[in-house]
């Protein structure tokens, strides 16, 4: 039943520094890291960022397997990207001729370089992003967003959406279990019928529940500002982390 909640919530151990860190600091560092990744060029910087992300993920108490498995897809995408560049870039000396049916595929050193660059950029960026995804609870992030003058209605909507994603998934699981207990999936025909009902009802049910939930929120004084603007000063510890982080990223950038 709770699968829905696990797949999207932060995974790390909430007592560790990397998870408990102020959302503003995290957001700034995330953006800085992604920019460094994008602007640096070359192979070294993205590779360093990827390693850094992997180390930090472990340090935050996320099971390494969770990280590795979620990185599998970016790896696949990176490989594909590498391949496309081998096809599309014809630059530098010729390294290899691969006969491909009636046609010949020329692999050049420029293609290899560009391909590797692109692939590593994807891996570096996704690594950093994944670290963030695995260790940051949404409310913290939204408070930070409010601090950076994000339009309140966007913050509000993001929060509500986030909540309703769970509602939708929860309703899906509830309906499926209810159907299952009444022979809903014992035969292919019943299964088809049940899936159709499930699909049709899901959005209606969620809509109703969302409305009732929202009414309950109104009853408890909700006036649209789900998260108050974060005015509290940055704790010294977090400020240090910010400075250190920026310094580290700058160092990495100069290593390019």
């Amino acid at each position, binding site marked *: 039943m709770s699968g829905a909640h696990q797949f999207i919530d932060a995974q790390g151990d909430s007592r560790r520094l990397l998870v408990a860190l102020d959302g503003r600091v995290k957001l700034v560092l995330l953006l800085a890291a992604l920019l460094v990744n*994008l602007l640096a060029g070359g192979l070294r910087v993205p590779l360093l960022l990827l390693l850094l992300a992997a180390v930090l993920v472990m340090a935050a108490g996320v099971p390494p397997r969770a990280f590795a498995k979620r990185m599998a897809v970016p790896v696949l995408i990176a490989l594909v990207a590498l391949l496309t560049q081998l096809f599309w*870039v*014809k630059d530098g000396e010729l390294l290899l001729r691969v006969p491909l049916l009636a046609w010949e595929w020329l692999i050049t050193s420029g293609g290899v370089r560009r391909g590797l660059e692109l692939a590593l950029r994807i891996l*570096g960026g996704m690594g950093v992003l994944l670290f963030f995804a695995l260790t940051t609870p949404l409310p913290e992030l939204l408070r930070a967003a409010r601090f950076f003058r994000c339009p309140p209605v966007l913050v*509000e*909507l993001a929060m509500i959406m986030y909540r309703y994603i769970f509602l*939708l998934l929860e309703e899906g*699981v509830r309906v499926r279990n209810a159907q299952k207990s009444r022979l809903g999936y014992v035969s292919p025909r019943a299964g088809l019928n049940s899936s159709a009902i499930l699909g049709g009802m899901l959005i209606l049910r969620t809509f109703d529940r969302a409305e009732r939930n929202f009414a309950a929120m109104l009853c408890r004084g909700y006036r649209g500002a789900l998260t108050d603007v974060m005015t509290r000063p940055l704790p010294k510890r977090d400020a240090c982390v910010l400075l250190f982080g920026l310094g580290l990223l700058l160092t990495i950038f100069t290593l390019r």
Partner: protein
Amino acid sequence: MAMSGPVRRSLPPPFAKGGGLAVCFLVLVMGVILVPANAAAMHISEGILPAGWALFWFLAAAPFVALGVRQINRRKKIDPMYIPLLGIFGAAVFVFSCFPIPVPVAGSTAHPAGTGLSAIFLGPFASVVIAFLSLLLQALFLAHGGLTTLGGNTFSMGVVGSFGAFGAFLLTRRLGLPLFWCGFAAGVAADLLTYLSTSLELALALHGDHSFWGVLGQIYLAFMPTQIPLALLEGAVTGGILVYVRRNRPDILRKVGLTREAAT
């Protein structure tokens, strides 16, 4: 997969109506489950677009998002229940576009967009905002897509998808087609247009020394086998939901201002 395991167990199938649809739908789900990289990154992944293009697409999408936010702010003042309505469609778009089908070329994935539905129910501008937010949440919490590519993804799925779908819906309504086919057209348009523009963005950024058009063609070809059936499916699902809602809960159609549609 630790992450995708729960996803697979708990993600409800998207919305289908009728037996035939459900078949397609089961095929789709089976496909998703069988493909090893099932929780694939959505949309254009982080790191693919170089800085210049990333910035360009952000600038291109920004005015639409800004207008959408303004519109939402205005309607919210009149009707407090507008926010949960947006929220629920946002959630639907999020979940809908969580069914990725990896495409073997170009470092992206094919998947239903869901913006057809939100464009019909909410109008194109609000739909852009919804798409923007679900892309943002996907990037931040599932590491699907990316942050620097958020502009590009918002432009293709949000702007092009929503406006395309809305246009198709309006046009077919004008032509007096039955509600199902209007939804169908909107769904197909949302899906195909999203992919046409995603491919365009990819080709612009990655074509290297090859001619842009050649690369664009190759990407289209790569997307085609998965995207065409998917677009048809999304069309059918969108139409199915519209009809289903009209039959069972006409009050919801009335609430979102599709009253006249509900009457037909």
